[in-house]
């Protein structure tokens, strides 16, 4: 598969969104010293559902994504970019990674800062 083809594929972006959410949840658990059972209780979800999230398999409604993000103190900022421009930019980033070995790729969703802190 060519890189441009991959960056245009649904699977790539689904996995990216799932993985980003997975990382935010892991980071939240570390910050708040919660295990998965405590996280389930905190979010009011079943342990099975949490285990699905922690396996990087979130594929539910957008409303659930927003609800989860806010519950862990993050704003789920979604950004839309022109795909051709993104591929071009990604190519440049990769070229600079090869020469400077400092990766800095652009993503279309980020969980920005803590909205509020819980006691």
């Amino acid at each position: 598969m060519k890189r441009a083809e991959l960056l245009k594929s649904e699977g790539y972006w689904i996995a990216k969104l799932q993985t980003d959410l997975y990382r935010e949840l892991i980071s939240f658990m570390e910050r708040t010293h919660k295990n998965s059972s405590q996280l389930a209780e905190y979010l009011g979800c079943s342990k099975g559902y949490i285990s699905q999230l922690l396996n990087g398999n979130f594929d539910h409604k957008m409303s659930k994504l927003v609800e989860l993000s806010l519950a862990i103190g993050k704003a789920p900022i979604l950004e839309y970019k022109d795909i051709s421009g993104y591929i071009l930019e990604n190519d440049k980033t990769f070229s600079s990674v090869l020469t400077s070995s400092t990766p800095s790729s652009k993503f279309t969703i980020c969980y920005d800062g803590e909205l509020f802190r819980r006691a």
Partner: protein
Amino acid sequence: MSKFALRNIEAVAGNQTFEKLLVDGVAPFDTFENELEAKDRRSLEKIYFYMNEVSNNRTLADTKFKDVTPHKEKVKEYEFKDGDLRVYGIKKFGGKIIILGGYKNQQKKDYRTFRSLKEQYLNSKSIKTNNNEKSRTPKK
């Protein structure tokens, strides 16, 4: 004896290089990709995403990427997975070599093929290294 070579995986970009193993000019990973059923295409795209993350030294859930090296084995072995798909690779200096891909229901057979190809490849490399060293040793 089979001839082995490595080719860069173009879809993976990051700090670690990802290459696929070629056996007599053909990459088993390419064969797997080309013969993939349409319904599994998305899973493969997701696996490519995971490869990119590993290439950029980012963490993943171990349900997506894990170390499957048997006890006492020197060269690390890895498995990428999504849905029914599995992709098998090994560690090399500065990255990974993808050896083959397969379906979950053929895992046992695929592990045998994977480990056999790994062994043959590593042996072919050590034979090459030995030959190079011999040719560099001055004759008495």
